[in-house]
């Protein structure tokens, strides 16, 4: 065995140290100055992200494939830290009014750590622990407003259903281990390619699809999503929608494309059907929603369906599409949810009808919401259009029906996204007092909007980066 080089774990160790530091500082500093913890977490994550950027191009395996360091993992880690940093920046005022800053920020950081472990995981055990670290941190975050019945109810639903889905996932992993005698994904893939397909292998794949389908909220494993998204504190919802989902996609790609390429004929059609059902269901049910968070929840289900399309062909282009879409989805989500967070902070409401005349009360909030939603709907020239283009481009040969479904449903989605826009821009506000945005929130919103526009108009550089990252996926 190669000697273990701890420097390979620099990022993870730094994030863990940051989380512990925030937690301990929270015990030491007095109540009045605890809002500084948010800034500490934000700048800490930014700093670690800088370190991460300097590690670009460092591709190796630790412990004979148990931990994979490559541009693929690094890209995801940067995405996670970026989304965590943006969520923290956008929600500081909200957290100050909620209390428990130290626990809150450290939970976000530990959840990020869990995602980073997932992105690099090369074996089932590491993967499972990363997943559970993330999940448990999220469970605690979801019921952080424990005085509110809805928040705790959401936490309850999340922990019980997540526990059940982990059991299913584990069952599948255990069968896979039993069939191959290894838990290291790359070895498993080599052994499976040599063996004939057995029914137990098919069962294992079914269980993996279900267990991970739960995490990415693919229909019909999505049922928890709207309830938990609605009940959770809004910044947590936003982090759940992008971080948790992106991390689950990261391991989904590793498990299915790197781990099960030998039997891809067996699962590609299933994934295609799941993607189609998810796109259709998410978009249709979003139409009658009246609560903004719930509407965004259903829209995020539909988005998961779009991302799933990238998995269908199991090629480098598909991986690239997934990474590209996940990255831009982070910004659209941050934009929409930060607006929702701050709106709730000011008005105490998430109902769509209360968003009436938002454009008059705060033009920036309304504009960001509009841009985020149009991007999700895939209207050019916003980022979402390019992302959908990359994803659907990969399946034009062979899965044309899926392209059709995606396009038709994109048009349907325009209907409910524009309904939000109409309420914000057309209706008269019941209370016309302008909403004053604190500068961190304004910065978050502007960053989200500008990035969404820039990626949409000039996707070249990001596309190059993603190309490089996706290229390293097959190097091991």
């Amino acid at each position, binding site marked *: 065995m190669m000697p273990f080089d701890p420097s390979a774990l620099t990022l993870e160790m730094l994030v863990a140290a940051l989380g512990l530091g925030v937690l301990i500082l929270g015990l030491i500093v007095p109540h009045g100055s605890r809002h500084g913890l948010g800034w500490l977490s934000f700048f800490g994550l930014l700093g670690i992200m800088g370190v991460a950027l300097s590690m670009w191009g460092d591709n190796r395996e630790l412990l004979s494939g148990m931990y994979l360091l490559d541009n693929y993992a690094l890209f995801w880690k940067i995405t996670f830290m970026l989304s965590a940093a943006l969520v923290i920046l956008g929600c500081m005022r909200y957290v100050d009014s909620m209390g428990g800053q130290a626990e809150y920020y450290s939970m976000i950081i530990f959840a990020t750590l869990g995602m980073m472990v997932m992105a690099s995981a090369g074996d089932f055990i590491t993967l499972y622990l990363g997943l559970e670290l993330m999940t448990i941190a999220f469970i605690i975050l979801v019921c952080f407003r424990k005085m509110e019945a809805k928040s705790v109810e959401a936490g309850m*639903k999340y922990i019980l259903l997540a526990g059940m889905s982990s059991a299913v996932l584990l069952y599948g992993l255990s069968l896979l281990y039993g069939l191959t005698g290894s838990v290291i994904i790359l070895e498993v893939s080599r052994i499976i390619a040599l063996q004939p397909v057995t029914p137990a292998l098919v069962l294992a794949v079914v269980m993996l699809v279900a267990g991970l389908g739960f995490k990415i909220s693919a229909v019909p494993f999505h*049922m928890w999503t709207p309830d938990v998204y609605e009940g959770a504190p809004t910044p947590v919802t936003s982090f759940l929608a992008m971080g948790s989902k992106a991390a689950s996609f990261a391991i989904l790609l590793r498990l299915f494309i790197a781990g099960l390429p030998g039997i891809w004929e067996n699962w590609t059609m299933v994934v295609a059907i799941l993607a189609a059902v998810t796109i259709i269901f998410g978009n249709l049910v979003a*139409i009658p929603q009246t609560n903004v968070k719930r509407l965004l929840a259903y829209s995020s289900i539909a988005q998961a369906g779009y991302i799933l399309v990238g998995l269908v062909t199991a090629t480098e282009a598909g991986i690239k599409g997934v990474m590209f879409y996940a990255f831009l989805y982070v910004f659209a989500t941050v934009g929409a949810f930060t607006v929702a967070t701050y709106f709730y902070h000011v008005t105490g409401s998430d109902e769509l009808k209360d968003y009436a005349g938002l454009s008059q009360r705060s033009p920036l909030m309304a504009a960001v919401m509009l841009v985020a939603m149009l991007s999700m709907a895939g209207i050019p*020239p916003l980022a979402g259009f390019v992302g959908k283009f990359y994803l659907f481009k990969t399946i034009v040969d062979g899965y044309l029906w899926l392209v059709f479904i995606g396009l038709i449903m994109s*048009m349907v989605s325009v209907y409910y996204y524009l309904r939000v826009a*109409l309420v914000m821009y057309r209706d008269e506000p019941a209370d016309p007092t302008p909403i004053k945005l604190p500068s961190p929130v304004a910065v978050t919103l502007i960053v989200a909007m500008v990035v969404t526009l820039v990626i949409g108009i000039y996707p070249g550089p990001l596309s190059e980066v993603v190309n490089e990252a996706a290229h390293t996926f097959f190097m091991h």
Partner: protein
Amino acid sequence: MLVEFALYHAWLVPLLPALAFGVIVFLTRPWPKLSAIVAVGSMAVACFFATLAAYGVFTNHEFVEKPLVYATRWFSLGLPGMPEVQIDVGVQLDPTSAMMLFMVSFIATFIFLYSIGYMEGDPGFSVFFSYLSLFGASMLLLVISSNLLQMFVAWGLVGLCSYLLIGFYSHKISAREAAKKAFVTCRVADFGLLLGLLALQIVFGTLNLTELSEKIAHFEEYTTFGMLTLIAVLVFIGPIGKSGQFPLHVWLPDAMEGPTPVSALIHAATMVVAGVYLVGRTLFLFHEVPSAMQLVAVTGGFTALFAATIAITQREIKRILAYSTVSQLGYMMLALGVGSLTASMFHLWTHAFFKALMFLGAGSVLHALHHKADVWEMGGLYKKMPITTWTFVIGGLAIAGIPPFAGFWSKDEILVATLSEGHYVLFAVGAFTAFLTAFYMWRMIFLAFFGEEKPENHPHESPWTMTVPLVVLAVGALGAGWVGTPWHNVWAEWIFFGHPHHGPVNYGAMLLSIVLAAAGIYLAYMLYLKDAKKKRARRLAEWFGPVYRMLYNKYYIDELYLWFNHALVDGTARLMYLFDIYVVDGIVNGIGGFAKLSGDGLRVFQSGRLQNYALIFFLGVLAVAVLMAFTGPSAASLVLGGVK
């Protein structure tokens, strides 16, 4: 020097109004007057550049032969096993786009100016100007696009802006409904266009107009004739929606719910001609497929007649104008369908002036009468509103096709082109429509502007910001056609498809169209202006019996016309109208309703009960297992056959 600059920086023309949009939204929104100045100013500067660019193109003969194209890489996409896809964003300047560039920016400038007066005091004044600017920017982007994807993006933006503007009076349910209808109908059509573009990209590997035209010229190397036909039909579906061709024209008349400058800008002079422009731009595609050309021609001709018959029975001033727009768009399509880019673009050009003029005139009337729209309740407006009336009359003469007004030359050009290509039926349809057009337009003018003044109306002339555009556009409606007279046709030397076409002057067709137009106007005059004493005459006829009726047989003719009008034309129009509102609208609304209903139905599963969710989760597991067993190549036999 400046011309050179304008030619090579034509992208500034759409960019300026786009910047104005950003500035208004983020900076000047609280100050309405400033917002208006920003919008009008940026459009005027854009118009200045557009004029220079157009001047450059028209004076430089090489650009007439070979378009000026420059582009920058937007994005490229490499996939294993497929050729690299490269999408550019660029400018293509040739006489057609230069003409459009000038026309759109020129008319937009005056409509913007007009809006200052019209929208005075509206709470959404700044917002309105921001939408207008964005709309102008998108339309100009569409015009200069050098490739179809860029065009499609602009096409979508134009649709979005029209949605926002039609529904601008969002407090009115009808406005919201109309906006929704416009958007949904256009999206349905856009879907066809999108499929067509996808197919073009897949088959020919490019969406650049110049490359496409070269490749399609010998399409046999790439694809079959059947596929090309399919592509042409799919591409044509987009213009059917955007340019209000039958059967997707339903949104256009309803879209008059928007403020009148919007109607003038979107639904008369610019947006709806985008479809015509797109077909004109891709004429090299249609040209290869005779059946597609046939489709375009027949659709256009039928729409022209169909809309004209409906227009006869309408009462609201803007609705009459809307149906007349549909009808005139049909003419343009007809011209394209018979292969005459020259005639089509010529009519587009003249129509832009007189239709914008008439819409703005109608807006002026509505402004004066506090939005009373029924022409039967107007009358005698010429006394109080001289400028509006006389400019409107010029517009009416132009659309009716009375020489030397602009509409005459372009309509004549279309009719001659139809005739010379041997489409006799379509020629008859076009000629008859010309008669109907003159009739219903002048019916409206006589009813609204002449005759007895209604005492309950207190009209007044509009402010200068509204009358100046009217006068300018009236000059256009008078003179815009002189560039294309059959004796000295400069127009045909600039804008043509293939080779410039110089036919002999067809005096017969010219005479026929003058006669038909005059007959239409005369008929309207007899029925609606001269016949102010009609009721009294009828009473007399009853007193003196059949003999008197014989003496006044002039009225028999009138009655015959009236009967004809009511029983036949009205009946047909009514039938068409019913078909319109029940069948065509029903389908469009049905799609939206279905999506909403199924959304309502599906959400029932979200019962809120956790264990229900768990149950569904495992039903999902079972479903995936079954799918996996039966979609995988070997799994089914494994599971059912059993390998031990």
